[in-house]
C-alpha cells in the first residue's frame, strides 16, 4: 500500500486519534467497526501464530488498515500496534461515506485493496480445494513465488523466508501434517528446510506437479 497523494484531510480532524508508541490499536479477534488512515507514525501488523508473534506488515503514513470492518462484522484478523507515536483518522461505517465522497483517491485506494484481497482469497481457495496434501503444500510455494512476483518459468531455486507454521497456515492443514509433507520433500531432495527459511530447489517441478494434480481432480 503506497501513501495517498496528499489529499487535504483537515476537514476530518474531528476523527483524529492518537496512539502512543507500543499501544495496541486493535487486537486480532476483537469485533471491529472502525478503520484507520495513518497520518503520522508507523503501525505494525502482527499475528500470533502458535508461540510466535509474526510480523505481517509495517504500514506508513497514508496507508489504511482495518478496512474490512466497515463492511461486515467479522472479528479483526490481525493485531495492530503503534510502532511510533501514531496519529490516525478513525472512521466508522457511518462516517465512511463522508470520507469517500470527500476523498475519491482514498476510495479508489480502498477499491484496489479489495480487488487484491479478493484475488488473494481466490488463490488460497485454489490451494485449499486440492485433494492431495503434498500438492497443497507445493501450491503454497507457487503462491508465495507469485506474491514475490517471481516468474517461475525462468528460475529454478527459490529461497522463501517462511516457516513450517506459515506453510501449514496457508495450506490449511495442521502443522504436524505439514511438517511430514515437508520432510518427505526433503527426503526427495526437492527442498531444503531451515528454521527460518525454506529453499525450493526446482519450482517448475512443483508447478508441473500441482497442475497435474489439479487436472486429475477435474476429471
Amino acid at each position, binding site marked *: 500500500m503506497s501513501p495517498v497523494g496528499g489529499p487535504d484531510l483537515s476537514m476530518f480532524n474531528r476523527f483524529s486519534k492518537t496512539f502512543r508508541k507500543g499501544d*495496541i490499536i486493535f487486537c486480532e479477534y476483537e469485533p471491529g467497526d472502525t478503520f484507520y488512515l495513518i497520518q503520522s507514525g508507523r503501525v505494525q501488523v502482527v499475528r500470533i501464530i502458535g508461540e510466535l*508473534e509474526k510480523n505481517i506488515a509495517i504500514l506508513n503514513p497514508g496507508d489504511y488498515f482495518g478496512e474490512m470492518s466497515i463492511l461486515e462484522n467479522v472479528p479483526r484478523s490481525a493485531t495492530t500496534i503503534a510502532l511510533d507515536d501514531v496519529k490516525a483518522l478513525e472512521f466508522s461505517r457511518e462516517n465512511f461515506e463522508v470520507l*469517500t465522497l470527500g476523498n475519491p483517491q482514498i476510495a479508489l485506494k480502498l477499491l484496489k485493496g479489495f480487488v487484491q484481497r479478493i484475488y488473494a482469497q481466490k488463490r488460497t481457495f485454489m490451494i485449499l480445494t486440492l485433494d492431495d496434501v503434498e500438492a497443497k503444500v507445493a501450491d503454497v510455494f507457487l503462491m508465495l513465488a507469485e506474491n514475490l512476483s517471481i516468474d517461475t518459468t525462468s528460475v529454478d531455486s527459490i529461497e522463501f523466508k517462511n516457516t513450517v507454521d506459515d506453510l501449514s497456515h496457508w495450506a490449511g492443514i495442521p502443522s504436524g501434517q505439514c511438517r511430514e509433507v515437508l520432510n518427505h520433500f526433503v527426503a526427495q531432495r526437492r527442498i531444503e528446510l531451515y528454521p527460518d527459511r525454506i529453499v525450493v530447489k526446482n519450482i517448475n517441478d512443483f508447478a508441473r506437479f500441482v497442475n497435474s494434480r489439479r487436472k486429475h481432480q477435474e476429471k
Partner: protein
Amino acid sequence: MSPKAVQYRANSIIYFKGDQSDRIFLLNAGKVSLSYVDIETGQEVRDLIKMGEFFGVKSALGRYMREETAIVLQDSAVMVFSIPEFEQVASKNTRIITKMLTVFSNQLRRIHRQVQNLMVSDEQVNPETGLYKIGEYYLKNKRYGQALYAFKRYLVYYPTGSYATEVTSKIVQAEEYLSRYGSGAAASAAPGPAPSAASAAPRAAAAPAAASGETSELAQQYYNAVSLVSQEKYLEAFKAFKKMLDGGPDPEYTAKAEFEMAKCLFYLKQYDNCIKSFTAIAQKFPKHPELKDALFFVGRSYEEKGDKAKAGGLFKKIISMGPEDDAVVRKVRKALRALEGEKV
C-alpha cells in the same frame, strides 16, 4: 485521451477468460453476458451485465488475468476506459466507487467464508479464546501494556465469558508488573487514569483467591465489579461495590471495595465525595499499602477542582514519602511538574 465508444456485433467477444488487459468497460446499450466457471461448484455461470454497469474492473485494476469471457448477445454500445480514465470518472462520481466497494466486499465476504470453512488446521479459534490467548502471549512475553489491552478488551466483550475470572486476575497481575517494571508499551505512560492505582486493591485480593484454588462468592462479586472498572463503567462498578458492602463487612474485601469505590468517584467527577472517601480510608487504614495512590487521587481531585495549592501540597507529601524510584512517586513527580508548569 478520453474513453472510446465502441460498437460490438452480436456474438462477438469483448474479451476472453485468461486475457490480460487494463481496459474497463461500461455497457451503454445492447446485451452482454459474462461467462465463467464458479470456483465453488465448478459449474458454468452466465451473468448479464446491466445497462450502465461497468465490467472488467477487477482484473484491470488488479492487473490479473480475466476470469470470465465477455460475450455480446445483441449488438451493443460499450465505452472503453483505460485505468486513469476510469479513475477520473470515478473520482467525479464517488458513488460509483461506493457501489463497487459494496459489490466487491460482498464477493470478498463470500470467498473469505469459503476459505475459512476449508481451513481445517489448528487455526480455527473462536474469537473469545483467541483474544484471551493474545493477552496470555503478551503477558508471558512481559509486554504488559499490550497484555492489559487484550485482557481489558476481553472483559468489555465477554464480561461473563469463560475466562472472565482468570482475565480479571491477570489484569491485576499485568498492572502490578507494569507498575513495577514498566513496559515498552505505553499504557503506563498514558495520561489520565493512573493504571497502577487500579491494581491497588485487587492485587492483594488475587492472592488468597488463587491460594484457596477457588473463588468465593464475595471474591467473584468483587472481581465482577473490578472488571466493570476496567471497562470504565464507573457508575455500575460503584453500585456493584456498594451492593457488596451492603452484605456486611469482610476482613479482606471491605477495604479494597471502599478503595475502588473512591476511585470510581474520581472518574465520575464527584471530586468532593472522592476526597471525603479517600480521606476516610487514609484515616481508617493509615498503613494501607496503597496510601500513596489514595493521596494521589485526593490531590488530583483538588487539581480538578482548581485548588492547585492543595493539589501541589499533597503531591509533595507523596513524593516525600519515597522511595524515589517508586512507580507512584514517579507518576506524582510528573503530575507535580505538569501542575507547576501550568502555573507559569
